[in-house]
């Protein structure tokens, strides 16, 4: 396959950027999208040009490091991570646009690399259960109904890639934040911090500059792990409950 790529190039934070066109050939359908970029980068290096910077690590769809907007869609046309997108989804001669996540709370670091540390700070504001090492009771001391365990797991699957934010017209982090709130608030172990957790995390989310939610639903459509949209409603419910009970 021969492809025309239009890639966002930006040398650093706050620097001006532009779409730059490249031709790549010798692409086969079995390649992943990132392996296709590897081919481009190898050529750029030999030509003495700066290769395209992008985040990636596990390349099996679980670490959440990779992520780019491909032809206008977060992670591209398939509902998966960029590393698990394969070139068989494209045709010979295609032109493909490749851009970084675009959101006010995710400033561009270089080319396709963005700064997602805001996510870490949201987790630090309550996305945990306080259980210092050594203090745990026996694992079977508190049974967890299978249904609750399944709901918790379904939400805990979030890989923190940021596709939800990139896909949202408002740059909102509601799906990411609600996944952790629902994961932990569903479990009996998470109950004691139920209120402080949702208040803290939503407060941090707002402080980081993420937009509000207008129920566009783009986040759940783009999410490679299928975090359910109703988690946002569940978080709103938790938030209202906690806000009502919180001392004014």
């Amino acid at each position, binding site marked *: 396959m021969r492809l025309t790529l239009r890639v966002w190039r930006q040398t650093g934070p706050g620097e001006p950027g532009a779409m730059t066109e490249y031709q790549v050939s010798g692409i086969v359908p079995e390649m*992943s999208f990132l*392996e296709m970029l590897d081919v481009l980068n190898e050529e750029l290096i030999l030509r003495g040009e700066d290769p395209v910077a992008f985040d990636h690590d596990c390349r099996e769809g*679980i670490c959440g490091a990779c992520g780019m907007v491909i032809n206008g869609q977060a992670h591209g046309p398939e509902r998966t991570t960029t590393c698990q997108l394969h070139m068989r989804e494209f045709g010979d001669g295609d032109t493909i646009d490749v851009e970084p996540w675009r959101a006010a709370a995710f400033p561009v670091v270089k080319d396709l690399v963005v700064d997602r540390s805001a996510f870490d700070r949201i987790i630090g504001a309550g996305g945990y259960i306080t259980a210092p090492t050594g203090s745990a009771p*026996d694992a079977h001391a508190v049974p967890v*109904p299978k249904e609750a365990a399944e709901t918790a*797991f379904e939400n*805990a699957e979030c890989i923190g890639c940021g596709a939800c934010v990139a896909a949202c017209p408002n740059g909102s982090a509601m799906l990411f934040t609600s996944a952790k709130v629902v994961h932990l608030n569903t479990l009996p*172990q998470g109950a004691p911090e139920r209120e402080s957790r949702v208040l803290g995390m939503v407060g941090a989310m707002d402080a980081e500059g993420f937009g509000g939610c207008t129920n566009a639903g783009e986040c759940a459509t783009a999410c490679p792990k299928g975090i359910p949209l109703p988690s946002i409603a569940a978080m709103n419910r938790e938030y209202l409950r906690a806000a009502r009970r919180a001392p004014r």
Partner: protein
Amino acid sequence: MKHRTAHTPSRTAPQTAARTAPRTPRYSVGSPIADTKAPDGPVERRWDQRRFEARLVNPANRRKHTVIVVGTGLAGASAGATLAEQGYRVTQFCYQDSPRRAHSIAAQGGINAAKNYRNDGDSVRRLFYDTVKGGDFRARESNVHRLAEISVEIIDQCVAQGVPFAREYGGLLDTRSFGGVQVSRTFYARGQTGQQLLLGAYQALSRQIAAGAVEMHARTEMLDLVVADGRARGIVARDLVTGRISTHLADAVVLATGGYGNVFHLSTNAKNSNATAVWRAHRRGAYFANPCFTQIHPTCIPRSGDHQSKLTLMSESLRNDGRIWVPKARGDTRPPERIPEDERDYYLERIYPSFGNLVPRDIASRAAKNVCDAGQGVGPGGQGVYLDFADAVARMGREAVEAKYGNLFEMYERITAEDPYRAPMRIYPAIHYTMGGLWVDYDLQTTVPGLFAIGEANFSDHGANRLGASALMQGLADGYFVLPATLNDYLARAPHQPVADDHPAVAEAVAGTEDRLNLLLAVGGDRTPDSFHRELGALLWDECGMSRTEAGLRKALERIPELREEFWRRVRVPGGGAQLNQSLEKANRIADHLELAELMCLDALHREESCGGHFREESRTEDGEARRDDDRFQYVAAWEFTGPASAPVLHREQLAFDHVHPTQRSYA
């Protein structure tokens, strides 16, 4: 060669002098390691004894101590969180953009614990026994027993943190069985156990970061160790965004930087996993133990072409319900569904009737290689075997199979565009884990005082072969429970005068790091860093992979120094050092891989026996199985670095088996 003339000889020595290193003798033998600091007495009382003897640091004094933790995988994140909870000041590093992305996240199958919730005869003693035997009698009994004891506490800890393990309808935890054992002791969260355990540890760490107890440096890579006055006192690190080189000083340094499987280029490791931290520590005096003990995982998706950048594992848990087979006839190219039952060879069930498809990894991998070498392999190049779920679907129904393995099937289909519910998966072995690593004593301290290594970065608990679902167990045992106890003792005993920023050791480490990066940038050659990585990986896979021969290893030992020399002459790294430069990061890691690879081959050459993942063609039984040589090799090989131009020194740590009698492993 520009870099040779541009620098003083002492500065260029590390890389270039190796090419003139004398080829024989390749190593010398030094004094044996006599004391591992494990207490004497009954094996089940040793950990208790050690904890009691360990000195404590007064809670009010802990905040006066700073500990550096490098890496945020299961071992690093759990250690950082726990040390901070105890009151220490922690400075922590990871090269990823977030601590949540460390490669533990990709572990799929599960975590072992001797809970015996199934009442199926499991016990701490049985987990201890299985692990020593599974490791082919090349692990320390004291360490393994401690691991088995702690396993039960880990599950408690993780459940308390909200890790959503799979549960039964009664609300209790579900378990499954794994390769190499006959009890059901593996706790799991679908096929994403590593992710869930890591997020639990990451969340605990995040709580400490938010509380100001852990100073977290993401996108920062350790490039050297600072050893001042004989003790590990800090690290030199590079900010991967700005390129700034900085020094961080502390009272102790903990390496939780994972394994070195990426020396092979193609492995199931994350693309950026690397050996730089452990290799730099080795060059600073930490012995490297059993580097040739690498694990090849039997169930990975076969490579599809030369463009392949990494290999993807299919969890070993699939072997619980999938059946492995190849056509009986050589070169049979019929599609699998057209091959009748009596023309299939379910070779694991045939050769190992009592363990069947659940034999340990090393045995399953070698068996796959043997049938492929015999011409019975399937798929492109005959480099694959079938893993078939037809019987499981018929027995359990598609829904039950989907509930258990859904995400793995989906991942397989995404990569191969084949539906494993209809056609069997094709799998082939791939490099997955490294049992070798920095030598540590019972306290997890390396031979450099004040330098600790935990998780996959050390060599300690798995001997020559790791059992499935034991890596997560060991990482968390080290980080949550072992290190926090033993580090107390180190900090309580040693007076720690502050190291000045202008200490000669600091200046030397910083200058060395800067020179090295400048050298890489200055070569300006005609080959990409990846091209060297691919070449090294192919060489190692052929000569130091699933089976090894004296001739092959000697060939690799000739070739690696040549390749290294070519690397420093021909590599091309565009851009500068003071910027985000992923080519520079890569080239720097490959430079270390090129040195470590040589030690791996040397270790494999010297160990003239087969054990666990190390299979020497010359040492096998009549029926082709691995033959250990306990008389000559019942020891840990701990290698001392003596300089780039001189041969390493071998220190032997003899292993004693007082509780599990070494036998020829039999899974038939």
